[in-house]
């Protein structure tokens, strides 16, 4: 049997589908449109025009999460992954230990000065396209620790963020809702705001000038500080 002729077994098994399709197509359509792709995609012959949309849908429906625990929220995040809430039901439940296998990073906790650069490194290691969900008040704004001398006032100072979920900590239901919203955005082809406020530049100027600060200031390459995350320009 050649591949351009539909097999009887397939045609027979998808008979209701085929009859619907025939009804929509009307009479007189050439049989050359019958192919395996037609079997799979129904009556629309032009699948390529919708491929972007299809890819967005795929991205939203098969998200690999980064297994990334920071603070209190990570406990609720674990609850969201496991029984009862089971994020896997929403096509988003496979925690990957390596950032190189992950699409989505949930930032579950307070970012402090020592950890912020490490988090950025992990974010940079994730392959494009990548998405970030801020879980909880700490990663949104510093939360209850905002006045702390060591606390970065929100993950958005370091990396671009798509979804913020308020709460201290948010309930698992809230996280599920946030992830569902992210999937919606991805499926519609929306992305996060692209330019990030470089927290280094903005907050560095206030410090007393001394040797170390001077040296650090000299070391800053302003080119590398402007972080742009943009699908189109990324390699």
């Amino acid at each position, binding site marked *: 049997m050649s591949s351009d002729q539909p097999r009887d077994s397939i045609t027979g098994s998808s008979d209701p589908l085929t009859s619907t399709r025939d009804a929509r197509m009307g009479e007189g359509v050439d049989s050359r449109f019958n192919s395996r792709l037609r079997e799979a995609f129904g009556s629309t012959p032009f699948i390529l025009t919708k491929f972007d949309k299809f890819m967005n849908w795929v991205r939203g429906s098969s998200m690999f999460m980064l297994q990334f625990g920071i603070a209190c929220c990570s*406990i609720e995040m674990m609850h969201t992954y*496991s*029984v009862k809430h089971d994020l896997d039901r929403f096509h988003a439940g496979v925690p990957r230990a390596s950032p190189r296998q992950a699409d989505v990073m949930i930032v579950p906790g307070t970012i402090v000065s020592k950890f912020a650069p490490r988090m950025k490194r992990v974010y940079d290691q994730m392959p494009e396209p990548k998405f970030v969900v801020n879980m909880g008040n700490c990663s949104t704004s510093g939360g209850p620790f905002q006045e702390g*001398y060591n606390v970065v006032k929100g993950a958005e100072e370091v990396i671009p963020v798509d979804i913020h979920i308020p709460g201290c*900590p948010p309930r698992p239901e809230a996280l599920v809702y946030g992830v569902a919203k992210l999937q919606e955005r991805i499926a519609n082809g929306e992305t996060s705001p692209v330019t990030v406020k470089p927290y280094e530049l903005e907050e560095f100027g206030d410090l007393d000038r001394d040797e170390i600060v001077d040296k650090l200031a000299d070391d800053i390459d302003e080119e590398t500080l402007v972080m742009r995350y943009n699908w189109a320009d990324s390699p």
Partner: protein
Amino acid sequence: MSTQKEEETEGADAPVAATEAGADGDALEALVSEHVLEREDHLNAPGFVIRADAVQDVLSTFKEEAGFDHLSCVTAEEHEDRFESIYHLRKYDDPTQEVSVIVPTSREEPVSETAEPVFRTADWHEREAHDLVGVEYDDHPNLERILLPDTWQGHPLGLDYNQDKPQIVTFEENKNPLEDHERAAGDSDTMFLNIGPHHPATHGVLHVETVLDGEQVADVNPDIGYLHRCEEQMAQNGTYRHQIMPYPDRWDYGPGGIINEWAYARAAEDLADIEVPEYAQVLRTMGSELCRIACHMLALGTFCLDIYGDFTAIFMYAMRDREVVQKLLEDLTGQRMMFNYLRLGGVVWDVPEPREEFFENVRDFLDELPERLDEYHDLITGNEIFQARTIDTGVLDAETAKNYGVTGPVARGSGVDYDVRRDDPYGYYEELDWDVVTEDGGDNYSRLLVRMREVEQSARIIEQCIDLLEDWPEDERNIQANVPRTLKPEAGKETYKTVEGAKGELGIYIRADGTEKPGRFKIRSPCFSNLSALKEMSTGEYIPDLVATLGSLDVILGEVDR
């Protein structure tokens, strides 16, 4: 109520303690009289001000001759005219026997002698004091910053530090630690392995610098501070009555919330002389034990995650049981994790109406628990593969444990029979019938076993609390003592009080300065001390056993870094 009991216990125990010293300040003073500058008693213990060059002499005398073998905490603070380091000593046999050693140093030259040769645990505590307050310790083996990054300017808990001014670490500052590692230099047989701070086996943001010799661990150095979110600053900027209480929930977010709140409540109630009604004590006891079960279930689930390597049945089962506990706690307090349930002088509200339904839910949970624990034992402790992985790995003997200030299930797994709930009773524990669990193995298996058996004991305590609450006469359900709206303990009052957290002895030191905010608020975190013993436990072991040991220590990084 509780304070009375403590006094009774202390009185009853004093003759039993072999030395005439005990917490008897005068006898202790006689032991070290040549070094003592003056007496400065704290609410919880006699305090001796000593010269800065006699720290080791005094501490070793107390350790050897008076039996104070537990350096619970080191608090450093800055005054207008001096720096102070306070060493809080107590005994593993009887923690009600306490003594504080106060070491003042001048502001111009804040150098005092290190206590590290006497108590190994002083190593990390003094590094923290140096990091946050700026006291220098002479002859300290490694006096580097421990919580803040190396590039930090100034000491944030000092008096002249501007806490509003942010400092940052540039991306470049955090270069790859492997970059400069010269493999061939000197010892070409070893390999440097960098674990964390983002790593699934470190339970949060812990960074472990490991040197490997083949597959064996030659050296291991936990690098902490990736979650140092200024808990002490937050507490010092809040008022006693209401503003501090939400923060303890976020120390041990296992969730040990109610236990942590109790630590603060116990210290503050001691400071302000507040008597807690008995009914509230029963509620606190019940809440604490529910928290302890949740914490131990988390420890069990994540430990097995480390051993078995994936999100498999045991992790899911542990999470399932935690869901039940969290539901009960939510019914009681209104929140799943950050309870904010305790108030100074009591709790915020009574058990939810209808009471019968709540009690029934708790009973249902307790009834199912033995069956579930049997299931865990079948899956975990009875599993030969698991036994091969955990028995005789990560061994910590009792003496080393005491030297490192290790407490909680980790100490009890090494045969140290120490539990603050029994030895320094608070709340309603003294009236209830329960046992302290110990195991002699000192290995990863024993620590897990201790936790699983403690869950049974917690269940016993909860059951008795439920019985008590059910039968409590309706007109005597007093949930809060009468506490003034503004608390201003008089200046100079100092106290150090501990409770038994899920991870060990959780202590709070407060110095009142006459205002409605604490002058100094210091948290003694059990995980901090437990983690410092990691090197002793895993040097010479295989690298997978290091991961298992880390899991069995059950560190919560929020509590380590505070």
